[in-house]
């Protein structure tokens, strides 16, 4: 019996198909639309240039001071959301992220307080204090994440349960360590000299370090997910864990890595918070886990696993913060803020999903002979 040859797809159909560059184009669109809306309807105000004492009229939203604050407020959530996205891609969830942030901040705060102007180690050189504080925050965060990962892998319990438990444990440890006291009095080398370092740009005071760290973390996470072997393994585990296991992938080790990265990201966010606000207490980051997961999901991460990007997480966090900022700029009654934020999150996700569906249809149509 002669075997019929498979029909060959004419080359012209394939050549005409172009892969879209950004999966996050829908989110970018939402963000641009929000920005445009606030720039047009937010109004303007008169400010005095600090350098020239000249009074100038500026847009309320699209001005350096406002965008700088927006970036700073986004940085904590975005960095944690990038970490949480790693976990979500594998099909897990990290509910302890707010508590890890809190514990890392408290550990860092106790270290910094010791080297503060009135601490036992006052006068220590910046070259020791700053890297030491960074190490403490990042180390504490990564350790908490590592413990979460071990718990998920060794106990074979869903991450929801493990991280629900560790959320209480970490916050409890932070509480016992601080005895309900806020830790302040940090060395200025870490606050004003590092995280809160001010630059003057056209008469506006800007604090670019949180923004720079946020971009750095996102770029690294993007590269790691897209170009590293572990990155590919993370998507494989999230797409089909059983198949990954049978393919010989180190599934457990991949899981431990993603939880550790999530903890590390919370530690980085805690470090920024310490440097910028100059204090930490056991109630820091209360309720942040939901904001972080919301940012990751708005950013396109699928709670079923196998889907999500670092840039998406950043954009998700940014969209939520822009809405918060918009409520203030438009002078909307604060009592309605939660309703507005919730509604816009749902709308943003819906628009992104519609955009993705349309794109997939276009791709299918383009690939069809």
């Amino acid at each position, binding site marked *: 019996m002669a075997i019929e040859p498979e029909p060959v797809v004419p080359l012209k159909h394939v050549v005409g198909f172009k892969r879209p560059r950004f999966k996050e184009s829908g989110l970018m669109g939402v963000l641009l639309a929000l920005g445009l809306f606030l720039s047009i309807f937010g109004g303007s105000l008169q400010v005095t240039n600090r350098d020239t004492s000249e009074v100038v009229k500026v847009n309320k939203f699209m001005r350096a001071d406002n965008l700088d604050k927006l970036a700073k*407020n986004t940085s904590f959530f975005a960095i944690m959301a990038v970490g949480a996205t790693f976990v979500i891609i594998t099909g897990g969830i990290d509910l302890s992220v707010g508590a890890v942030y809190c514990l890392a901040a408290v550990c860092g705060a106790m270290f910094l307080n010791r080297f503060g102007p009135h601490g036992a180690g006052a006068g220590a050189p910046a070259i020791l204090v700053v890297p030491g504080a960074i190490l403490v925050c990042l180390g504490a965060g990564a350790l908490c994440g590592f413990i979460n990962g071990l718990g998920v892998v060794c106990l074979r319990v869903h991450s929801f349960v493990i991280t629900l438990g560790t959320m209480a444990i970490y916050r409890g440890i932070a509480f016992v360590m601080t005895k309900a006291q806020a830790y302040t009095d940090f060395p200025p080398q870490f606050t004003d000299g590092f995280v809160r370092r001010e630059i003057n740009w056209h008469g506006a005071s800007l604090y670019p370090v949180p923004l720079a760290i946020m971009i750095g973390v996102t770029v690294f996470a993007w590269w790691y997910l897209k170009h590293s072997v572990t990155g590919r393994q993370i998507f494989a585990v999230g797409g089909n864990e059983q198949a990954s296991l049978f393919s010989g992938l180190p599934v457990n080790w991949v899981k431990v890595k993603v939880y550790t990265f999530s903890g590390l990201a919370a530690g980085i966010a805690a470090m920024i918070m310490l440097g910028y606000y*100059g204090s930490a207490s056991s109630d820091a980051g209360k309720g942040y886990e939901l904001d972080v997961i919301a940012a990751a999901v708005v950013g396109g991460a699928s709670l079923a696993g196998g889907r999500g990007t670092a840039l998406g997480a950043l954009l998700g966090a940014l969209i939520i913060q822009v809405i918060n900022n918009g409520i203030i700029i438009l002078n909307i009654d604060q009592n309605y803020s939660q309703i507005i934020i919730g509604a816009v999150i749902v709308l943003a996700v819906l628009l992104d999903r519609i955009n993705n569906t349309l794109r997939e249809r276009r791709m299918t149509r383009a690939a069809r002979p």
Partner: protein
Amino acid sequence: MNIYHIAARVTLIASAILIVAGCDQKKSEVAPPASGGAAKKTEYTFAMVAKSQSNPVFQAARFGAEDTAVEVGKKLGVKINILWRTPNEDDAQKQVENIEQLVLQGVDGISVSCSEAETLTPAINQAVDQGVAVMCFDSDAPASKRFCYHGTDDNECGHIIMRELAAVLGPGKHVVAIPGGNQNARNLQNRIKGALDEATNYPNISIRGVYYSKEVPQDAAAKIEEVQTANPDIDGWAMIGSWSLFTDALLKWEPGKVKIVAMDALPAELPYLTKGVVQKLYAQQTYRWGVRSVELLADKVILGKNPTNVMDYSELPPVTKDDVQQYEQNWKKWLRE
């Protein structure tokens, strides 16, 4: 039957005996003393249920209660124990559970700061119906059967903060904002109402808005920074709650450019006065919350005396740059540092 089965059965029987014995023991502990020939009670237990463990003002109240329990106990020739039963975070439901548990434990009196008056009222009433004296401190449940309230007059506090801010701002047009904290907290709502009512007496002052946030220092500071950046014409903040001042983020504000009058005088807030970023603080008597709780409960339970005023308002003394040193000393004592 193998060794594991025998061990399991022995363990089960032993557990059952222990549980029965334990229940019996508990019953005998909770049982009220016989009214006729019972000896005079020499030991009393008062409980304090504050809003949140993580708020330092309540730690001061706790130490105030513990110190006063010793003093009052000596004076009256009895032993007064203080039980501290406060949820880790603001949670009215947890407070209700704690009150119910305390009543079961057989405490003589409870002093509670209500996270949410409506949720706490039935639990307070139930405790009172079961013979436990209940009072409120810091945050009241006015519709409940509590025998008195001790703390700040929140409405008056709002008036004072706004009046002082108006004085600090002086003549001319001014734009003022109010940080609101938790939208559901009755005491904060009363302060906001007081501040807004007072503002109507000053036609030169316009209120830009009430801005709510979590009562967490970093969140509150972020909100204030964001509002101030979006509205640079705001030149006064009537801080009916001063969570944002527990960070040092606003310390970099140019002293005197934006005038601030705020509640409380916690250690973290004092540098703001020294630097001149905050013009005046109004100190809630947090240590005295504990002191008065024990005094009022002892009067009611041990001496059978009702308070002269059901609303036992505490003072709200102003704190300026000159008082910073004294307050630093006070806090060392109040927090047992």
